[in-house]
């Protein structure tokens, strides 16, 4: 069993603290993705789990062992690095078998397991090449092969796809998912790409400035963001955020436009409270061209500033209460800049955040 527990884990470089006491429990065979903007401490956290970085405070457990003072080789993990870190002076076969050789496995056993791993990843024809003779995608595969061949309890990935082009990234993403279904292990995967996080994760951990902002399934993070940060970080294009004040059961925006507060949020909407209204582009659409026509809603007349047709839908840039707002039009209709349309805001998925703390009102 390889559950991973982080208990108030801190990382300091000198006086500067970059990870501020993280608590996280990762279940056996769970696929957890740490996601957040560059510099938020994802890699540092992962490297503390790996044993490549000293832990300044708190406790890291893998299985039932406290691993704080164990070197990487004693943690029964394997790791895929962003730059793949293949050994340049060894061919693919030797790269894959290196860990087994160090562990003192017999040559027969090594070659059997290398062949198995190579077959799983389609590397069999490449076994005699050196890393320099491989394409980016092939190197990536070798790096994954090297990780699985030792059959560790935990896989750690640090931005493994960020050096690939968009198409290959999509393919490898699917392969990693498949691989996890085949080789069930606990996975901690670091990325700054929210699409990767959404598609791969059993649970995602949204990080910001060395703290965990939210932990949950991808759909929880998408549907119930706890903060404005998560709301804008998860989902593409990002959620629109409009500042306003609660007045008489509605949010009054800067220009006086009022948007009714949905019933489920009413208990938190004291009059006079300063809030941020969050609403995804998918929920603002020209009347008759939205996802949902019923449920609570509000209509506003807005002018199209720019439209990006994407085929069956268009992304519309418009302006509400003096602020740029993204909307979506579903259907193959062409929209021109300058066109005035009535938009319907579907409010059953709208969010309200406290203007000061950025916390969702539903958490009060």
């Amino acid at each position, binding site marked *: 069993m390889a559950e991973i527990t982080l208990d108030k884990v801190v990382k300091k470089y000198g006086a500067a603290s970059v990870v501020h006491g993280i608590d996280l429990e990762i279940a056996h065979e769970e696929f957890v993705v740490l996601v957040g903007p560059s510099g938020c401490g994802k890699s540092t956290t992962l490297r503390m789990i790996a044993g*490549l970085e000293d832990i300044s405070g708190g406790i890291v457990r893998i299985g039932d062992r406290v691993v704080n003072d164990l070197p990487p080789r004693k943690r029964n993990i*394997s790791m895929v690095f962003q730059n793949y870190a293949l050994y340049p002076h060894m061919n693919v076969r030797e790269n894959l078998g290196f860990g087994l050789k160090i562990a003192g496995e017999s040559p027969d056993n090594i070659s059997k397991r290398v062949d198995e791993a190579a077959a799983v990843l389609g590397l069999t024809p490449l076994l005699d090449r050196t890393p320099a003779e491989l394409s980016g995608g092939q190197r990536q595969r070798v790096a994954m092969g090297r990780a699985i061949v030792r059959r560790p309890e935990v896989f750690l990935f640090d931005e493994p796809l960020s050096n690939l082009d968009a198409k290959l990234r999509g393919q490898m993403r699917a392969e990693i998912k498949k691989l996890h279904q085949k080789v069930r292990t606990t996975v901690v995967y670091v990325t700054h790409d929210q699409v990767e996080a959404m598609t791969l994760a059993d649970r995602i951990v949204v990080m910001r400035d060395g703290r965990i902002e939210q932990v949950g399934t991808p759909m929880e993070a998408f549907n119930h963001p706890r903060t404005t940060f998560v709301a804008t970080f998860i989902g593409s294009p990002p959620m629109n955020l409009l500042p306003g004040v609660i007045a008489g059961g509605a949010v009054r925006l800067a220009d006086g436009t009022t948007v009714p507060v949905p019933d489920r949020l009413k208990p938190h909407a004291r009059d006079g409270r300063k809030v941020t209204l969050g609403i995804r582009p998918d929920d603002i659409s020209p009347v008759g061209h939205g996802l949902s026509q019923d449920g609570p809603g509000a209509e506003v007349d807005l002018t199209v500033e720019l439209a990006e047709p994407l085929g069956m839908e268009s992304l519309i840039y418009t302006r509400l209460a003096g602020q740029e707002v993204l909307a979506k039009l579903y259907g193959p209709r062409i929209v021109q800049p300058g066109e005035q349309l009535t938009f319907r805001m579907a409010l059953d998925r709208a969010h309200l955040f406290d203007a000061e703390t950025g916390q969702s009102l539903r958490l009060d």
Partner: protein
Amino acid sequence: MSLAVESQTSKQLKRAGLTALTFLLMVVMCVPGLWVVLSAFRPNGEILAKPPIWIPEAPTFDNFRKIFGLGTDQVAIPVGSYFMNSLIIAMTSTVIALAIGMAGGYAFARYRFRGKGSIFLGLMLFRAVPGIALSLPVFIIWSKLGIIDTKIGLIIVYVSLNVPFTIWLIDGFFRQIPLSLSEAAQVDGCTRWQAFWKIEFPLARSGIAAAGVFAFLTSWNEFALASQLTRSTSSKTLPVGLLDFTAQFTIDWAGMCAMAVIIIIPALILTFLVQKHLIAGLTFGGVKG
């Protein structure tokens, strides 16, 4: 069309010019060496002839015979002892300088520590001091320590002469090896020590070989300090032995040239042996410092 032809001829001209320049440089560098080698195989009279005689008219091994005491008219010079002294001193100092260079280069490349920048700068500045300027202080200290005219004395001098250079060169090589390779090896089950020997050392091998050749040649050819610190056959090296050919009023040029050839040969052999590494080392490494 004509444009293309023109650029082609100008390209050819450029190439011809470069070839000529390379040739000229090679001549400037090689002629003295060639003269030494040629002179090793002819009598003194022919060496001093005016106008110079280029191609030996009466090639002979007499000079070598004389050195090894096989001739009739001259006392033998203890070439064998000098050679062994040179070999022991150069090899030992090279091995030690490489060991320190690897440890120091690795430390500079991989670790942060206080005063790192100034220590590195200090090492490089030490190289700027001409060795001969240190000869008097070294002589005094060595004689107090009683290691004048010993191999150990010279080895210590050569190690300190070579260490800044080996550290600098090897540091450049380790720097180019991504840290993640060693980390991957540690995740794969290695200790830090194993990761070094199995991953980082093989990748830096060319640079280490290059540093070794330079250190060896420096020690092998060094004259100024050796001539101050050695005086008997128990520690005199080959370059110092060259002086045996000068008497108060005469210089035996032919014997000296023959001895020079004996000095050059091991250096050439070594350079050829590690040629592959040397070229890889010189073209990839040392650029970043």
